[in-house]
């Protein structure tokens, strides 16, 4: 077969190439139920533990009772940042673990397209990860994050962007310092926890 292969313009962003990155990780997730389970497991566990903690305080303190849902909301929203960041870094690490990065970067794929592909995957991973926890909180603790209403949309967007920013920075560190820097993928975001006022208000 010759001459039937045609290449699109290499100039500008290509949705086809961004889609290829998404497709690559979609195939990976589709073929691995353990990865999907792992995505949903930690947020669900966090939510359950903090839900019980909240219920304990409700039954022992009338003051905390007024704050029902505060801790659960904090856990779920914090998990959005965490999962958004992991969505970027774990997808990047999957390429590194499978020794596929060189193959990707000798194609016309641009760094921007690669990053956009990882961001789309990050949204998918966050929905798979946090979604079940959000839904479980409704029957278990009568708490719905959706009661936040429309402000939830910009809130979610800002949290995702924050997670992507940290995720891309971590990818840079891993590229610069190699496999020894992989632990940054899980550790870096927690450096922001004390100043984020997740479980307490910042003055």
């Amino acid at each position, binding site marked *: 077969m010759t001459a*039937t292969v045609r*290449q699109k313009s290499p100039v500008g962003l290509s949705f086809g190439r961004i889609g290829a990155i998404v497709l*690559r990780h979609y*195939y990976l997730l589709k073929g691995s139920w353990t990865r999907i389970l792992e995505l949903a497991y930690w947020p669900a566990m966090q939510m359950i533990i903090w839900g019980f903690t909240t219920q304990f305080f409700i039954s022992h303190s009338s003051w905390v009772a007024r704050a029902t849902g505060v801790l659960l909301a904090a856990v779920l929203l914090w998990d959005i940042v965490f999962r958004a960041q992991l969505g970027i870094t774990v997808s990047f690490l999957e390429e590194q673990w499978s*020794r596929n990065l060189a193959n990707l970067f000798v*194609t*016309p794929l641009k760094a921007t397209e690669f990053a956009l592909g990882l961001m789309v995957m990050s949204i998918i991973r966050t929905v798979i990860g946090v979604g079940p926890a959000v839904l479980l909180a409704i029957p278990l603790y009568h708490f719905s994050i959706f009661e936040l209403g429309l402000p939830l949309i910009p809130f979610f967007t800002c949290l995702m962007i924050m997670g992507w920013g940290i995720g891309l920075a971590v990818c840079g560190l891993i590229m610069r310092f190699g496999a020894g820097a992989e632990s940054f993928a899980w550790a870096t975001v927690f450096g922001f926890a004390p100043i984020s006022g997740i479980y307490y208000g910042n003055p």
Partner: protein
Amino acid sequence: MASPAIEVDGLTKRFEKVTAVDGLAFSVQIGTTVALLGGNGAGKTTTLAMLLGLLEPTAGEVWVLGHNMRRERAHVLPRMNFSSPYVDLPHRLSTRQNLKIYGHLYGIRNMDERIAALVHDLDLAAFADRPVGSLSAGQKTRVALAKALINEPELLLLDEPTASLDPDTGDWVRSYLETYQRRMRATILLASHNMGEVERLCSHVLMMRQGRIVDRGSPQELIGRYGRDTLEQVFLDIARQQGLAAE
């Protein structure tokens, strides 16, 4: 005369205090197959990485298919491809899934047709839907070759294309490359340790040692110049710094 497929001038790569590639200058004419030969650490893989734009040279320039790789890499990448046993495809994905992803990355329009042709030509049908990680070394090499040919490249860079293959599979891969090169009038630059392979496939050889080209010529010219019977003996002379290359 048409511009060469590859032109390299003063190409240098330093990693802190180590100079991996030291002032290379060479060109590869369109439609030829050229070998980069040298022992371990001679700088072959680093040179290939700079030709692909994966590594930025410390000094020097690379032109590929008439474009400067430092400034116009995006224009060239759709027309070239690469394969190496040291770079894998995602293990958990099947051959067909991998080819589809790379087809999208290269912007192949008649994707299904192209993949079907590669599966047929490279005899991949029996394992096209199995995860790449479960394949034998020979099967993985054929899959990697299919990936490298998905965009029908004008320029193919191959790093040890038959490393760790049994003689039968190695011979099959070499035959396929010969056929592809003739059919497409493609240019192939390969780094190899297999002297028989180089004698069979290559019209020109660049001998490297310690990051420099220490000799060059056709396999027969080099064999004659060193007064040897085979290219392997020439390689050993150069690697052990005996004869002409040491002068």
